[in-house]
C-alpha cells in the first residue's frame, strides 16, 4: 500500500463531490426549463488494490476512494408514455370542439338575427299579404315585403353555407401548415437521434439532447398523436403514428394530405393524411382537422341544405308557378344556391281576383313539424348537442393531460429543496475530504520532516 494512498482517496472524493455539485447546480439552473429531466450523480466506492503476499499487510487493505459511476437522467417512461397518449387525445378533442364551436357560432341562435327570426318575419309578410287587398296598392306593398323577407331568409342560408365553405378552407389550410410542421419536427427528431447516438458513442452523456428531443416528440403527440418507443440498441427513439414509424431512429418519413383542395358542398370527398402514399391513422389535432374536413363540415352543409330544400319545396309547392325559391345555377335548391329572385308582381296571394288562400296558408308552414322552422331547429339543436358533448370531452381530456403532465413533472422535474439539501451534503463531504487531505499532509510532514530529529 502506497504511503500516498490517503491523498489519492481524498482527491477522488474532492473530484466526485465537485462533479455532484455541478450536477445539482445544473438541476437548479434548469428548474424552470420546460421538458428538463433532472439528473443524478451515481457514486460507488472504489475497491482497494489487491493485497499481495509480499506486502505483509494482508487483512487490512482499504478501498481507494470514491468514483462517479454515471450521471443518470431520471426519466419516467411510463409517465412519459401516458402523457403522449393523453396529449394526443386532448388535442383531438380540442380540435373537434373548436371546429364545432365555429359552426355553432354561425347560427346566431337564440337571437334576433338568427334564421328563426328571419323565417318568422317571412311568414309575417305572407300573413300581411293575406290581409291586404291583392288588387290594390296595399297588396303591391305586401308583395314587395314578401319578396324582401324571402330573400333575407335565402341570404341567411347562403351566408351559413358560405361560412361553412370558408371554415373548410381555413381548416384545410391549417392542416397544410400542420403537415409542414410535422415533417420538420420529424426531421429534427431524427437529427437529434443521430446526434445522441454519436455523443453516446464517445462515452459522454447526451441528456440535454434527449430532453430537447422528447419535447419535440411531445409536440408531435399534439399534432398527430405520435408516441415514442425507445430503441433497445441506443438512446434514440422511434416515433410511431397509427402503427407506422414516422421516425425510425435516424431517418424521418414525411406525411402528406390526400383529398380535395376545396369544399364541394355536402358531398365533399374524404380528406386523409398519408405516409409514404398509404393512409395513416393519425391522432391529435390532425385527426380533429381531417374529421372536420371529412365529416363535420360536409354534415353541417347537409344540415343547411336540408333546411333550404324544405323551405323551397314547401313554399314553392304552395305557391305554384313561378317558384318563389330557385337555385342560382338552375339545379336543385341547396343552401349554397338558394335565392328568392322572384319579381314581387309574380307573387300570388291566391288563385285569382281577391282570393288570398295561398298567402293565408303559407304561414301555416311555420306550424308544421316537417316545415322549415322545425328542420332548422332540429339542425341547430343536433349541432348544439354535438358541441356540448365535444366540449365535455375536451375538458375531460385536457384534465387527463394536465394530470399526466403533473405526474411526469412530479417525477422528472427539479425540486429545489432536495437539490439544495444534496448541495449541502456534497459541500460537507467536500469539506470532509479536504480535512482528510490536511490530516494526511500533516501525517506526511511528521514522517518526512520530523523523523530522526529527536533531541537535535
Amino acid at each position: 500500500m502506497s504511503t500516498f494512498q490517503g491523498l489519492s482517496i481524498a482527491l477522488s472524493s474532492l473530484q466526485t463531490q465537485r462533479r455532484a455539485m455541478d450536477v445539482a447546480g445544473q438541476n437548479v439552473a434548469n428548474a424552470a426549463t420546460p421538458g428538463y429531466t433532472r439528473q443524478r450523480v451515481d457514486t460507488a466506492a472504489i475497491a482497494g488494490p489487491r493485497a499481495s503476499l509480499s506486502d505483509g499487510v494482508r487483512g487490512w487493505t482499504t478501498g481507494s476512494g470514491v468514483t462517479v459511476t454515471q450521471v443518470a437522467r431520471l426519466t419516467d417512461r411510463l409517465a412519459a408514455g401516458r402523457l403522449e397518449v393523453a396529449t394526443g387525445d386532448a388535442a383531438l378533442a380540442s380540435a373537434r370542439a373548436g371546429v364545432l364551436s365555429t359552426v355553432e357560432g354561425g347560427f346566431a341562435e337564440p337571437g334576433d338575427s338568427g334564421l328563426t327570426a328571419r323565417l318568422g318575419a317571412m311568414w309575417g309578410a305572407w300573413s300581411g299579404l293575406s290581409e291586404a287587398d291583392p288588387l290594390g296598392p296595399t297588396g303591391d306593398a305586401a308583395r314587395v315585403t314578401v319578396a324582401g323577407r324571402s330573400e333575407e331568409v335565402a341570404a341567411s342560408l347562403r351566408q351559413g353555407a358560405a361560412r361553412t365553405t370558408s371554415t373548410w378552407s381555413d381548416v384545410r389550410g391549417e392542416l397544410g401548415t400542420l403537415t409542414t410542421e410535422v415533417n420538420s419536427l420529424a426531421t429534427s427528431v431524427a437529427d437529434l437521434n443521430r446526434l445522441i447516438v454519436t455523443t453516446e458513442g464517445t462515452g459522454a452523456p447526451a441528456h440535454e439532447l434527449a430532453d430537447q428531443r422528447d419535447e419535440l416528440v411531445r409536440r408531435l403527440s399534439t399534432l398527430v398523436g405520435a408516441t415514442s418507443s425507445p430503441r433497445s440498441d441506443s438512446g434514440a427513439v422511434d416515433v410511431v403514428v397509427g402503427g407506422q414509424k414516422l421516425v425510425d431512429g435516424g431517418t424521418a418519413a414525411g406525411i402528406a394530405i390526400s383529398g380535395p383542395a376545396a369544399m364541394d358542398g355536402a358531398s365533399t370527398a374524404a380528406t386523409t393524411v398519408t405516409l409514404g402514399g398509404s393512409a395513416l391513422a393519425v391522432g391529435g389535432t390532425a385527426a380533429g382537422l381531417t374529421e372536420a374536413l371529412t365529416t363535420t363540415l360536409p354534415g353541417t352543409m347537409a344540415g343547411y341544405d336540408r333546411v333550404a330544400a324544405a323551405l323551397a319545396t314547401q313554399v314553392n309547392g304552395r305557391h305554384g308557378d313561378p317558384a318563389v325559391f330557385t337555385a342560382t345555377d338552375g339545379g336543385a335548391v341547396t343552401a349554397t344556391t338558394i335565392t328568392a329572385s322572384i319579381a314581387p308582381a309574380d307573387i300570388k296571394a291566391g288563385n285569382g281576383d281577391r282570393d288570398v288562400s295561398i298567402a293565408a296558408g303559407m304561414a301555416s308552414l311555420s306550424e308544421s313539424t316537417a316545415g322549415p322552422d322545425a328542420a332548422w331547429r332540429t339542425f341547430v339543436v343536433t349541432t348544439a348537442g354535438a358541441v356540448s358533448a365535444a366540449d365535455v370531452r375536451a375538458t375531460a381530456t385536457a384534465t387527463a393531460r394536465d394530470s399526466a403532465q403533473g405526474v411526469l413533472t412530479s417525477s422528472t422535474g427539479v425540486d429545489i429543496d432536495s437539490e439544495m439539501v444534496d448541495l449541502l451534503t456534497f459541500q460537507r463531504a467536500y469539506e470532509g475530504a479536504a480535512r482528510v487531505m490536511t490530516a494526511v499532509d500533516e501525517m506526511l510532514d511528521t514522517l518526512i520532516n520530523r523523523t530522526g530529529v529527536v533531541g537535535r
Partner: protein
Amino acid sequence: MSVSGVSASLTGGYVSGRATLRGTSGTAQASIAAAAERLARATAEVSSGKKIQRPSDDVVGTDKALELRRALAAEDRYARAAGDAISWLGTSDTALQRGTALLQTARQLAVQAGSDANSASGREAIATQIRGLRDDMLATANTTYLGRPVFGGTTGASVAFAAGADGVVQPSAGAGNPVSRTLAPGVDVRVDTTGTAAFGEGADSVFAVLDDLASAVVAGSAQSSAQLGRLDAALGRMTTSLADVGTRYARVQSSQSTGADRTLSLTSAQRGVEDVDLAEALMELATHEKAYQAALGAAAKVVTPTIMDFLR
C-alpha cells in the same frame, strides 16, 4: 444507463407528491386560468343578461327557446289577423246596421203610402224618397274596408253589387267566395259576409224590393201595402246577417283575449329559458371573483418559498 429508460415510477424513484418547481407553478397557473375562465363566463352572463350565450350552453334550453321564439312570432301574426278580422267585421256590422235602418225607413214610408189620404204628387214624393233609399242601400252594400268590398267575397271587381244595363242590381262575380283569417293554428274565422245572404238575390234582393215598392207607391195605396211582406222578409234576412256578424265578432274578440294571454305566458316562458336571474348571476359573479383572487393569492404564496429563503 441503468435508470435512464426505466420507469422511475416503477423502480421506486417516483414519490407521489414530489413538489417540483415546474409542477407547482404549472398547477398554480392552471388553477388561475380555470378561475379566470369561470369569472369571464360569469361576467358575460351578467353583462349580456342571457343565460344561453351559445346553443351548446344549454341544448334543451335552446330547443325550447327556438320553439318559443317561433311560437311568439306566430302569435304576433294571429294577433294582427284578429285585429284585421275585428275591423273587417266591425265595418260589416256598421254597414248592416245602416242597411237595417234604411229598410226601416222604407217600411215607414210604405206604411205612410198605404194611406188613401196621399195625393198623387205626395205618392210621387214618397216614391222618390224610396228610390233614394235604394241608392243609399246600394252604397251601403258596396262598403269597403282597405279597398275591399266587405260583401264582395273574393270578387275582382271594385264593388260587391252593380246595376246592370237593364238597371237590375246584380252581385259581382266571385262575391260568394269566403274570406277568412287564421286566429290560431287550425282556427279560421270567416270575416266577409255573403252579399246575397244579407241583401237577397234576384227578385228577393233588397234592391228589387225597393224598386218594386217605389213603383207600387206610385200605383196606389193597396199596392204599397202588398209590398210590406216582401220588405219584412228583406229586413229579416239583414237582421239574421247582422246577428251572424255579431257572433263572429264576439268569437274573434274572445280569441284575441286568449291570444294575448298566450303571448304573455310564452314571453314569460322565453324569459325563463333565455334570461339570467340577475340576483343569482350577480352572486355567482361575486363568488367567482373571490375564487379568482384566492387562486392568485395562493399561487403567490406557493411558488415563492424554497429552502433558499432560509439558507444564509
